[in-house]
Every structure is written in structure tokens, then in C-alpha cells.
């Protein structure tokens, strides 16, 4: 039966070619939308890795005249002490400009076992970072004040970087090198992944370095964990404290939850626009398929009438038409899957293969569903054809 239907469609391949192309392109569009959506969801369900509630960021610019690192260190340590001494401040610490949910990224490359790994996010932070953000150590330890005297360069890496460099297993005490293969860096701990690009993007590979005295020349951000009852009045006080200490600087205080909301918007707005556009495109295509199938059935009244006259039931006639439409869709989906499979095979956008496969499955289901629904009504109409009337027309 299927083979027979297959032949029927193959004989009309020229007539059906446009429909096939149309279904093929719809499949590719849906594949793109679903990949985007599945990937966002896949990242969304993973934990954030930090507790960003009640965390504020103070942005300032270093405007001190002195170039002396010692006096800078003294000055900024004093400022941090004053901030920590405020009543509603739980903890605070300096950080480089790539605080969570900011647009700023700093990347560098490293070597391990002769393999070069690019795009490692570099965070320069101080000892309080872990406590301020409420992140967890998976292995080893976080920095403490004695690390300032460390002879070798030490570093804390995140779990994503660990898995990329070492795979599973214990890594504390192992070493990697900078991108030229010189200067070993000893790993002292592994921190949990932090989704610093918002809810919908994956936690990128990263490395956390302890700030040293020269960092105060260019650092410009203080992360502050405050008590839940800290309000705008308190924020005003905090702002005044910082601007009275840093006389020539411009001060801005941001809240991490607000930064997260606006960062998420940047990922979600394109997805929403894409979905709306794709939704209308699909409605458009569905109506088109519906119309063409309906027309085809009207043209084949004679054939259908004859089938009915020699004893085919209404159900078998309508299922023939629905099956034909589904086989037609299979033609285009085969071509579509061929193209879609290239994405995980060639690893085009560096997404996990599972995301592509799920998206492909969803797109297949979706297209089959649309074609099935669009062919139901024309099929039913065909079943209602009376052989006497249809054959009389000939």
C-alpha cells in the first residue's frame, strides 16, 4: 500500500516539487527556532551557581593621582574596610569589570598537555568573592590572605574549564601553562559553574585569579552583599561614602537582579521576535498546503469516485489522501534532516548534540502535525464524494 502511494507521488514529482521545497524550508525554519528555544531551556534549567539577591555592584573609576602601588593598596583596602563597617553590609570585595550579568568579557588562552584552549574568561577578584556571591567550591579551596605571598602562580578554575581540560577526576595540585607553554599555573581549587551571562546562556569556561597590589590601578568594581532590608536611603548613604572617599570619581550603583533582568531580555527578545515571525510563516504555509491539497482533491474527483464505486470505504479514501500528504512531507523531511544533521556533525555553533537532536525531533513532529491537520479536512471532503455524482461529471 505504502509502496503504491509512494509511486503515485513519484509520478507527480514535478507538480509536487514546489510543495516539497516549501515544506523543506518550513522544516529548516522550525529547526532553527526549536534549536534556539531548546538551547535556552537547556541552559535555563541548570542552576545559576550564585545567590545574586541583595548583591550590589559599585562602579567607580580610579582617579587617584598617585601611581604608587603601595599607597593605592592602602587607600583601597581602607575604603573596603569602611564599606564593610557599614551596618547593612554583610560582605564586600573588589572585582574586575566582568562581574556577573555585565556585557564585559575578558578572555585569554592557556595550554595543557600541548592542547591550546582559547576563550577562557579571566576574573580578577579578591578573597571575599566566594562569600559575597555565595558560590561553592567543588574541590580544593578558595583564596585566602596568605596567598599574597605564594611563590608560584596559583589559580581557581570553574567546573566547565576543568571538564574541558582534564575531564573527570581530581585536579587540585595539577598544573597548566599560559598560552606560550611557559610559566606553570598551579590549580588550588575548582569552583561551581556560574551562569554570568544570564539564565539562558550556558556557563562559559572561566578562571578566577586573586588580585595583587598592581590590580588596584585598573580595577573599577566592588561587589557588595547587603542585608535584605537595605533600601534606597541606605544606598544613598553608601554612594555618599564612596564618593566622599573617591573625590574625583563617578560612582554608579547597580543591583545584580536588575542587571540579570536586562541581560535576559537581550537573549529573550530575539527569541520572541523569531518565534512570532516563524509562527506567522507557519500559519501561512499551513494555509497554503491546505489550499493546494484541497484543489488537488477536487481535480481527482473522477479517480476517487471510481475507487468508491468499486467498493472502497469513505475511511480508506480519506486515509489514502492523508497518507499521501504525509509521504510527500517525508520526502522533504528526509532532505531537511540530511541538512540538519550536519549541524551536530560539523559542530557548527558549538552547541551540545542533544540540543540539535531534540530540536530536530520537535521540528519533525511539528511539521508532520501541521501536514496531518491540513490534510484531514480535504481527506474528509474526499470521503464524502458520491461515486454517482463524481462519475457522472466525466
Amino acid at each position, binding site marked *: 500500500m505504502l509502496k503504491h502511494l509512494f509511486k503515485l507521488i513519484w509520478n507527480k514529482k514535478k507538480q509536487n516539487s514546489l510543495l516539497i521545497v516549501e515544506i523543506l524550508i518550513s522544516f529548516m525554519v522550525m529547526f532553527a527556532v526549536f534549536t534556539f528555544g531548546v538551547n535556552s531551556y537547556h541552559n535555563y534549567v541548570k542552576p545559576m551557581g550564585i545567590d545574586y539577591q541583595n548583591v550590589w555592584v559599585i562602579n567607580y573609576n580610579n582617579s587617584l593621582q598617585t601611581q604608587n602601588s603601595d599607597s593605592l593598596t592602602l587607600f583601597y583596602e581602607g575604603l573596603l574596610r569602611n564599606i564593610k563597617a557599614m551596618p547593612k553590609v554583610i560582605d564586600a570585595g573588589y572585582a574586575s569589570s566582568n562581574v556577573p550579568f555585565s556585557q564585559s568579557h575578558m578572555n585569554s588562552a592557556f595550554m595543557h598537555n600541548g592542547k591550546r584552549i582559547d576563550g577562557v574568561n579571566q576574573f580578577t577578584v579578591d578573597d571575599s568573592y566566594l562569600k559575597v556571591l555565595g558560590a561553592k567550591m567543588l574541590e580544593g579551596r578558595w583564596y585566602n590572605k596568605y596567598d599574597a605571598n605564594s611563590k608560584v602562580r596559583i589559580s581557581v578554575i570553574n567546573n566547565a574549564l576543568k571538564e574541558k581540560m582534564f575531564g573527570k577526576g581530581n585536579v587540585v595540585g595539577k598544573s597548566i601553562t599560559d598560552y606560550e607553554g611557559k610559566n606553570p599555573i598551579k590549580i588550588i581549587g575548582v569552583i561551581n559553574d556560574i551562569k554570568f551571562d544570564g539564565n539562558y546562556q550556558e556557563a562559559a569556561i572561566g578562571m578566577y585569579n586573586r588580585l595583587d597590589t598592581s590590580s588596584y590601578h585598573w580595577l573599577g568594581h566592588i561587589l557588595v552583599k547587603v542585608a535584605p532590608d537595605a533600601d534606597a536611603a541606605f544606598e544613598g548613604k553608601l554612594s555618599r561614602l564612596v564618593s566622599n572617599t573617591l573625590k574625583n570619581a563617578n*560612582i554608579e550603583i547597580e543591583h545584580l537582579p536588575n542587571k540579570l533582568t536586562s541581560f535576559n531580555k537581550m537573549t529573550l527578545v530575539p527569541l520572541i521576535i523569531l518565534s512570532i515571525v516563524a509562527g506567522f510563516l507557519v500559519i501561512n504555509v499551513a494555509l497554503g498546503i491546505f489550499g493546494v491539497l484541497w484543489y488537488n482533491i477536487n481535480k481527482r474527483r473522477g479517480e476517487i469516485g471510481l475507487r468508491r464505486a468499486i467498493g472502497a470505504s469513505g475511511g480508506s479514501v480519506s486515509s489514502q489522501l492523508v497518507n499521501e500528504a504525509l509521504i510527500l512531507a517525508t520526502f522533504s523531511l528526509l532532505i531537511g534532516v540530511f541538512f540538519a544533521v550536519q549541524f551536530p556533525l560539523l559542530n557548527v555553533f558549538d552547541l551540545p548534540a542533544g540540543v540539535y537532536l531534540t530540536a530536530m525531533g520537535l521540528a519533525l513532529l511539528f511539521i508532520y502535525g501541521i501536514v496531518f491537520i491540513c490534510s484531514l479536512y480535504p481527506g474528509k471532503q474526499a470521503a464524502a464524494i458520491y461515486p454517482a455524482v463524481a462519475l457522472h461529471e466525466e
Partner: protein
Amino acid sequence: MLKNYFKIAIAVLKRRKFFTFISLFGISFTLTILMVAAAFIDKTVNDTYPDRKRDRSLYVKNMELRGNGSMNSTTLSYYYLTHYVGGLKTPVKLAISTNFSATNTYVNNRKIPINYKYTNADYWDVLEYEFLEGKALSKQQIDNAERVTVISEDMKNEYFGEDSGPAVGKYLEADNVKYRVCGVVKNIPITSYSLYADIYLPYTVSKKDLVHDKGYMGEFNGIMLAANKADVPKMQQEYDQMVARLPMPDKQYNKIYSHADPYIISYVRTGNEQKSGLTIVLTILSLFALFVMLLPTLNLVNINITRIMERSSEIGVRKAFGASSQTLVYQFIVENLILTFLGGLIGVVFSVIAMYFINEARFIANLELSLNFTVLFYAMLICLVFGLFSGVYPAWRMSKLNVVTALKAS
């Protein structure tokens, strides 16, 4: 003849209402998307408030230093703009300002985010901000480093309250400094990012030391104004010659790039010589248009073919009476264009509704999308392209119909 085609087209449209609905739905929806996109682009790059002298201005935004393996690209220093750019002969005025940066202020236990921008006196001559109250920062005020500011209408409402009466003469605090308000200007959307700010301050009150920094790189950008339109190419040439003569600031670099661009090119400049912003923007836009138009076009082609096959007897008769293929193709394309323009008309109505909702939702503050003649012109153009694309192939198929089979089919 055209009148006849028109009559036939309308008759055909009426015959199969369902097909007509599908075609019109596809066309009008596609056009709505493209028109809203066109209105958005038109608003962001073609709206000439407040830089009405755009056609005789050139924008200087950044400098890129390149060496073997090192690259540095950023905005310019005040020294560079006054000393090197200010020394050019052709520009009659040079507006200098920083890009906007953010700070907060706290009024009555309420937090207000403020975007501020430092400007020089020429800035207010080159750009024609519309003043709702007061006036611009004067040269004297700026030279004396007076703590005065021009604020936006939104800032006034936010800081002083909606019905607080005139704001001029009142004081506004930012970064622990009190500024006296000397003017209130009409809002501009953040999409005009090089001109947008909530408060405009004299560059002389900036807390940074601007005079002693003799490097090229800093936080400023400039707008050069020529005396008339004809002088613009001369001004651009003079700027390029000046850049070519610049001494290298550091041994690690061997090339200096900096451009004086017309508005649109400066708007999309990426700050990287190796990636042309205009190419990237054009590629993205055409891909989007293709993505939106491809499926509806295919759909329309499909439906058109179906409809033509339905009319095979009519075509057969016309052919039998001697109508040439050319006439038939011509007739069908005209019919299809009528259909697309009808869809376009509905699309215009839809896009007006869509724009109304987008404006109401205030996705981007102060960005009011509107339908103007430029957008309508683009809409007509898109209609035409759409109609031709979806009409040519079916018409060609139709003209190839064999007279005998066409007549026999009925």
C-alpha cells in the same frame, strides 16, 4: 486593456475566496513585518532630530592603532580633537562630547539612574536641540567651569516630578555635585547613542584632567561642521591627510586609522578596520528580509500555479484565438501585481496597528515609530518585488500550456 485586466483580476479574486484569503494573508503579513522593520531602521538612522545639519557634518568617533599582533581601538582624547582636528581649515565648527555614561542620584529616598555627557560650547551650535525651557550652555559658562546643566524632559519629570513647573534655575544633584539647570530639551531615544543623555554638562567640570593628557585616545568624539554641503568632501580629504601625517604614539604600532564619516557610516562603524560595519549590517538585513520573504513567496507561487491550472480552459480559448504567450504572461503578472498591492494596502493597515502597539508598549523609550513617505515608498518597492517574484514563474508555466490539452481539460 489594463482596465480589462483589472476587471478580470477582481473577478478571479472573488471566485475562490479561500485562496484569495490565503494569498492576501501571506502578502499582508509579510509586508507588515518588513514595514515595521523599515520604520524602525528609518527612525534610527533617518530621524534628523537633533542633528539637522547632518548633510554638512562629518562624524569623528574613534581611532585604531595597529601593529604586528597588537591592536587598540577606542574613542579620542580632548587634546587630539582640539589640537589636531581643531587645526583643520575647512570645518567652521567642531562639536566635542563624551559618550554617555551612567551614575545614580538619590532624591527623597528614591534612586534615579542618570546618563550624563560632557560637551563643549560648539556642540550646542552644531546640534539643534529643541528647548522646552531655558537655553543651551554658553561659551562663557563652559570656560568658567560653571556647574550648570541642560537636562532632558524625561529627567525633569523624573527628578522634579511631572507638574513641578519650570525646572530652569533649580538644582540637580549627581555624584555629590549640585548643578543648576539652565535648559530642558526634548527627549531623544537611546538608539541615537552618540547624542543621547539625560543631563548634559560642560566638559570643564569633568573631574578628569583633560588638558595635560597629550595622548590620542580618550573619551571624546567630535562632529565637524562644514560651511556648506560642497565643502564636505574637501573636509574629509583634509582629515585623512592630517591622520596620515600623525606621529606614531608608540613603537609597537605602525599604522593609525581614523575616519571622518557621514552619519550612517559612523553609526555602524565597528571600531575595527578589518570588519566593515556597513557590510555586516547589510548582510544581516538582507538575510532577515530573505528569511521573512522566502516562504510566503514560495507559498504564493504554489497557490498561483494552482489557480492558473484551474483557469486552463480560459487560457486555452485565448490561445486558440491567437493571444501570444507574451500577452498572457503580461496579463498574469499584472493580475498578480494587483493582488500584491491589495495585500500591501491591508499590510499598511496592519503595520499601523502594530506600530501603535509597539509605541504603546515603549520597548525603547522615546522611540516613536511612524509611517512616513520613505517607509511607504519602501513598502511599495517591496510589494513590487514580491509581486514580480511570485508572478513570473507561474506565468511562465501558464504560457507553456499546450492549447489542445488546455481545452480538453475542461
